[in-house]
């Protein structure tokens, strides 16, 4: 494996990445990049970040052997990296804490964020409250309707939730609108992006704030298992933040890595969010990457039962890892993910997020092709409390009353 260092100074991962944004905010990206680079080379910042992750969010999160699930499934042992145990219930908070600390360091008093299902919106509103920043969250009208509970939570946390009525009124439009707002308020506002997407330096920064997942996993695996490294690592991919965070320290190793996209109703239908399997090169939200689009370049609306995977693009580093074949990307359907979620529930007492259930579903398949002495580590990116309403509509065999 050639050890190309990505991203380069222009924010490029091979051909992917870059900064495709209006000139108005170019200076802000440069300001952000230098503030970020300076912060992460400052031991005091890293110490503070580590302390906040530990004392506020409860890190390190454990690595749990899924005993009964592995036995029921057969094949390799499955370990779960428990990002669901983070404060606010998903890995999203790792990044939100990191970016908020950076915003404070840069003297910004306002943050803005986009959200789809509301998970990143809640994380952003949370850190804004914690660090005394004002917070506006952009959210599609359609998503506001579907995710009333999270909308209420954000408001309770003191954030302003701004309804986005443009386009398809979902995550991609909320992101457009957040960028628009950023363009207008760039001088005093920090844009807190929720995944490893967006213009450089966002993908790099989000990876840096999420790599704690992989670093902890590597250490923990070494301690609790007989082998040094697992035989496979699996994570779901929406924008790609939990996956890139999990993969980060493993990329240099030769452990097989698997990113799992949402196949929705099937990759051969028009209802999926399988960006790498079915998308093509293009620019979305400031970055050159793979995306779902018409042949003319109109971005199409993706579909997944899981709101967090329902994104037409993907972080540029994943596009790069895909093209360089370092990571294998697979797609899992709604049905497979629900089945995996149920199996995890009844065997381990863990209700995971529908996003994470995609990773679990693929691990189950993968583990069955491996032997009992091998181990698969799955990033359990979040808990499923948020999905209970959706599950009530979709899970058969458990009457909802």
């Amino acid at each position, binding site marked *: 494996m050639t050890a190309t260092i990505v991203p380069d100074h222009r924010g490029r991962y091979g051909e992917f990445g870059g*900064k495709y944004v209006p000139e108005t905010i170019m200076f802000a990206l440069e300001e952000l990049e230098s503030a970020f680079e300076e912060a992460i080379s400052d031991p005091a910042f890293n110490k503070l970040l580590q302390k906040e992750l530990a004392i506020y969010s409860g890190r390190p999160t454990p690595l749990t052997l899924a005993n009964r699930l592995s036995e029921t499934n057969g094949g390799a042992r499955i370990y779960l990296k428990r990002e669901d145990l983070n404060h606010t219930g998903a890995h999203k908070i790792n990044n939100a804490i990191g970016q908020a600390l950076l915003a404070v360091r840069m003297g910004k008093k306002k943050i803005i964020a986009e959200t789809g299902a509301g998970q990143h919106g809640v994380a952003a509103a949370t850190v804004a409250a914690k660090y005394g920043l004002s917070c506006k969250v952009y959210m599609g009208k359609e998503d506001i309707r579907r995710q009333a509970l999270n909308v209420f939570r954000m408001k309770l946390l003191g954030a302003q939730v701004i309804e986005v009525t443009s386009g398809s009124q979902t995550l991609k439009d909320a992101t*457009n609108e957040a960028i628009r707002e950023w363009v207008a308020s760039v001088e005093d506002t920090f844009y807190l992006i929720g995944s490893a997407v967006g213009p450089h330096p966002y993908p790099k920064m989000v990876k840096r704030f999420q790599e704690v997942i992989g670093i902890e996993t590597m250490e923990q695996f070494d301690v609790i298992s007989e082998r040094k490294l697992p035989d496979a690592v699996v994570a779901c991919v929406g924008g790609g933040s939990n996956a890139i965070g999990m993969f980060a320290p493993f990329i240099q190793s030769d452990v097989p890595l698997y990113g799992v996209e949402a196949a929705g109703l099937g990759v051969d239908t028009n209802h999926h969010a399988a960006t790498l399997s079915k998308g093509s090169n293009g*620019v979305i939200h400031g970055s050159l990457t793979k995306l779902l689009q018409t042949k003319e*370049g*109109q971005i199409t609306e993706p579909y997944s039962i899981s709101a967090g995977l329902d994104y037409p693009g993907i972080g540029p580093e994943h596009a790069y890892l895909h093209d360089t074949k370092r990571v294998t990307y697979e797609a899992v359907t709604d049905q497979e993910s629900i089945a995996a979620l149920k199996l995890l529930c009844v065997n381990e007492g863990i209700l995971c997020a529908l996003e994470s259930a995609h990773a679990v579903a693929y691990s189950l398949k993968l583990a069955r092709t491996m032997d009992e002495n091998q181990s698969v580590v799955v990033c359990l990116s979040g808990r499923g409390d948020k999905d209970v309403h959706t599950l009530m509509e979709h899970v058969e065999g458990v009457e909802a009353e």
Partner: protein
Amino acid sequence: MNKRWESFQNSTQYRFVPYIMAGDPCEEATIELSLALQECGAAALELGVPYSDPLADGPVIQRAGMRGLGQNMTLEKTITLVSKLRERGLKIPVIIFTYYNLLLQLGENRFVTLAEENGVDGLLVPDLPYEESSYLREMCSNRHLALISLVAPTTHEDKLHKLSKEAQGFLYCISSLGVTGVRSEFRDGLSAFLHAARLNANVPVLVGFGLSSREQIQQFEETSDGFIVGSAIVNKIESLEKQLMSNREEAIMEFKHFIDSLLPVYSR
């Protein structure tokens, strides 16, 4: 530099550059609106391409894009529309305003070829900053297409210097932060910014983003060589949508009336 740009640059008038969306509300309307704008004294025309995710645009132009998409207007069709405009008598420079993804899918090479073939004079890509534009810039300059540079009040001094110097066609100075759309106030320090831009530019320096009234436009008369009006015009087109489809002649009359009322007296 082609003849159309030559006469644009040699003009002594305070240059009026309108923006309209291709296919809004239909292709024929776009043609007639363009000709009407030329009649009203437009020095050049910015022709927008409908896009699903226009992140530099405000709601007025977003809606225009939706109407254009409804007409199945594409980047390729927008380019060929320009040759129809030429056939119908449009003489001013035409600049295609497109988001980068549309260009990428068409292919940058194919774009410049088609553009040249169809009488397009320039290109403006709001989400392609200078730093990402070297390939396209080269392609454009090979075909004598102006790749219009935008500079903003937030642009660093030395970058402003460089962009002003290298600017082709005209230099687009963003008059206010934020997306396209109507503004009621402009920021302080704007004239210093325009002054700095003008100092280095070899092309006319135009101001745009948010201009919507004669009074506002006149503010920049001293500090710039022209102005761009988008949302205010597109807004008018929206209000004339029905008539533009059914009773076009009358609509175009009213449109011209509106443009006249917008322009500084000496621009007519």
